[in-house]
């Protein structure tokens, strides 16, 4: 063991000795009341605003059933739409159906975009970029003003 390892071990023991001897911090006297206020607030919420695990069992079962039915409908409906696009006059593979769906979506998008004047698109993109930059600048200014200066003031005690 070299000199540095010995020094590190000594340092570790020393810090360990200093920290382990520490008694617990006393919790603020307001903690209990805050916990009970939060428990009361949560208890006052209607069941459908609580977490899913706290819903009544019947409501959970119903939601699961509805989700399952919707999932099944989506799959069946997707297949029928693919058939509707004429790709399934013969038995279609899943890949054919997916391609037909993609193709239909692409055609729909192209039709929609074709009806919008190009100038509107450019103006929309410019507006979105401008809003993004403004939001970014606002957030950065807010952070520097509200947080950095406050933390620097707090750190200089």
């Amino acid at each position: 063991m070299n000199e540095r390892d010995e020094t590190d071990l000594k340092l570790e023991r020393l810090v360990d000795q200093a920290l382990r001897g520490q008694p617990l911090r006393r919790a603020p006297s307001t903690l209990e009341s805050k916990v009970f206020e939060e428990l009361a607030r949560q208890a006052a919420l209607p069941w459908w605003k609580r977490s899913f695990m706290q819903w009544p069992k019947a409501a959970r079962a119903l939601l699961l059933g509805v989700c399952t039915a919707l999932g099944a409908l989506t799959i069946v409906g997707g297949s029928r739409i693919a058939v509707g696009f004429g790709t399934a006059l013969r038995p279609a593979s899943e890949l054919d159906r997916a391609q037909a769906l993609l193709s239909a979506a692409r055609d729909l998008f192209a039709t929609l975009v074709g009806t919008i004047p190009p100038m509107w698109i450019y103006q929309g993109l410019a507006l979105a970029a401008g809003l993004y930059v403004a939001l970014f600048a606002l957030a950065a200014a807010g952070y520097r003003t509200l947080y950095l200066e406050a933390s620097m003031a707090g750190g200089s005690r």
Partner: protein
Amino acid sequence: MQNPSTEPARLAEFTTFMRAYKDMVFSTATRLLGNDAQAEDISQEVFVRAYAHFDELRGSPTSGGWLKTVATNLAINHLQRYRRRWRLFSQMEPAQEDGGDGGAGLEFPVPDSMPAELDTEQHRALIEDALRELPADQRTALVLYHFEDLSYQEIAARLGASLAKVKTDIRRARLGLLPLLEARGIGRASLDH
């Protein structure tokens, strides 16, 4: 969740439970976060969750460990979320990822022991003050190692950091802590005795 107002006996039992553990939960959170207000919020969340699981926790010998684990996880999550949120805007110190040998070496001899009076209330406050002055990364790793008895590997896994960074942070924290203690009158001068 059941309405606490309709369950006075359960509520009274939970109050006793909370009083038994609130100092431990708050200490765990405040040492990791270095901020009493945030630690109180985390402690509140810990006990709200404990109430939801109170039927399993009441009378369980592992309830203290459960509370400590939840407090530690919530505090670490809070630190990581906070760090991610502001990293974009901050003028952070240069990244220390995997770097170097843990900083400069010792510029003073390491004493062999701390004085016995360190476990007094006044010294506790001084040491906790010194801990607060450490950078968050270093303080968190140091607290997990020395207070929570986690290994370097466990700390790296918890924090999502590399093993090298954890070792570096802990070494830097130890090196940084001694001068801070000394500045509070419990450093080398008193330790040399």
